[in-house]
């Protein structure tokens, strides 16, 4: 499979170093490395700010835990085997603090940690909206600029991804981002932060693409059906099935 992308990585040097160049999309790293931190399910007492998080969702004092999911999402989450609190944030700060209760009301068992579980966002993620989940996230819609998706696992956008996406946010460099049209403002995988260079238009997006870390650089290439098996390892899927009995 040929990667058709050019990537820069900062590497601590003053001038970014070109990593691989085969095509249309170019991304430049913004910052070399941010220490990945664990994303914890809400309600967990440990501190859990993810690197770039605006949430601080486990902290009452900060007064800004992410809001409860909409009715729609609650429904989605209830359908999950063990949806353990994806957090989304926007809208009013008062509703913010109600996430744990809402989840309880939705009858979702809490406490189970779900790195292999997947959260579905069945709407377009708009500017100022942010979804964070300790597992995979699938967006059935677009991610607009100013919108943000943070997952400790993979991120799949069944639409156009123009916002900020962070896969493997706890440090998993095997995490990938797949989108029908991949034109992110910023794309992060584990500790890699990339953006398009200034003089290029975002490019890409004619066909589904996959972004992943390879040889210490983020690369984006055409998504080939079936090809994901190499990147999204089969073993984790099996593990999940076993967990669910």
């Amino acid at each position, binding site marked *: 499979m040929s990667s058709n992308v050019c990537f820069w990585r900062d590497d601590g040097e003053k001038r970014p170093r070109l990593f691989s160049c085969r095509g249309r999309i170019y991304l430049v790293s913004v910052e070399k490395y941010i220490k990945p931190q664990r994303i914890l399910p809400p309600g967990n007492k440990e501190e859990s700010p993810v690197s770039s*998080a*605006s949430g601080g969702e486990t902290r009452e004092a900060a007064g800004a835990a992410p809001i409860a999911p909409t009715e729609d999402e609650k429904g989605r989450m209830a359908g999950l085997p063990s949806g353990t609190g994806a957090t989304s944030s926007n809208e009013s*700060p008062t509703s913010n603090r109600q996430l744990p209760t809402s989840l309880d009301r939705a009858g979702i068992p809490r406490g189970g940690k779900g790195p292999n579980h997947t959260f579905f966002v069945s709407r377009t993620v708009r*500017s*100022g909206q942010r979804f964070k989940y300790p597992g995979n996230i699938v967006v059935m819609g677009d991610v607009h*600029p*100013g919108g943000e998706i943070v997952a400790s696992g993979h991120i799949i956008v069944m639409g156009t991804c123009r916002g900020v996406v962070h896969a493997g946010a706890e440090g998993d460099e095997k995490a990938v981002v797949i989108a029908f049209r991949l034109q992110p403002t910023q794309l992060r995988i584990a500790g890699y932060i990339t953006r*398009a260079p200034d003089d290029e238009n975002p490019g890409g997006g004619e066909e589904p693409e996959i972004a992943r870390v390879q040889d210490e650089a983020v690369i984006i290439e055409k998504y080939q059906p079936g090809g994901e098996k190499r990147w999204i390892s089969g073993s984790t899927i099996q593990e999940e099935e076993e967990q669910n009995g």
Partner: protein
Amino acid sequence: MGEVIVVTSGKGGVGKTTTTANLGTGLASLEKKVVLVDTDIGLRNLDVVMGLENRIVYDLIDVVEGRCRLKQALIKDKRLETLYLLPANQTRDKTAVSRQQMIDLTARLKEEFEFVLIDCPAGIEMGFKNAIAGAEQALVVTTPEVAAVRDADRIIGLLEAAEMEAPRLIINRLRPDMVRKGDMMDIEDMLEILAIDLVGVVPEDEYIVISTNRGEPAVLDRHSRAGQAYRNISRRLLGEEVPFLNWDAGGGFMARLRKLMGLG
């Protein structure tokens, strides 16, 4: 110690963000060390106008809540060496920061920078109060419309109550042709109502729209009339005497303005 200047208006959409971006860029191109602070939490724009949106990793809230160091959150401009942006957070709201946190933040920034320009959100609520908390000076932006001038008057009153240094006025989106026909308030009318010093008049200029969409402040464009106005204001902020642009508004307008400004 740098100067902390808040750009405010009361009414929304009159050009606060445009003014902050252009004056910051203008001052930095005069080799001043400048930081722009976006306090419009939840509705940030300054990063987009500056063309720096895709560099944001940390923001103002991360700084005040201690999730990162101040230096990590400052984004260096892509054109000018001495210009930085501290972006707002987009997922939270105005209550995410307190007045005291803004006072502390601006105190730290003015140790490093010669100018700290604060882009204030519209309104007179919490966002406004936070934005002015750490500022010593204010630039009030208005457009030549009765409603905008009314709101500017309200804001000036609030700034005076907050014991800010005498606020200065920027009139934005002036259309000399309309003023000439008597369809738009002229500068003199506005100065009479607001009774504060005028620091600049920025004409309506379609290049502002183009440059905003491109993320390149108009002040860098030699051909933009608004850009010229912003270059002049930047120099006035440095204490230079710069003559006002000739709007060619006719009717001895410029002469009256000069007289008003004590320029001749």
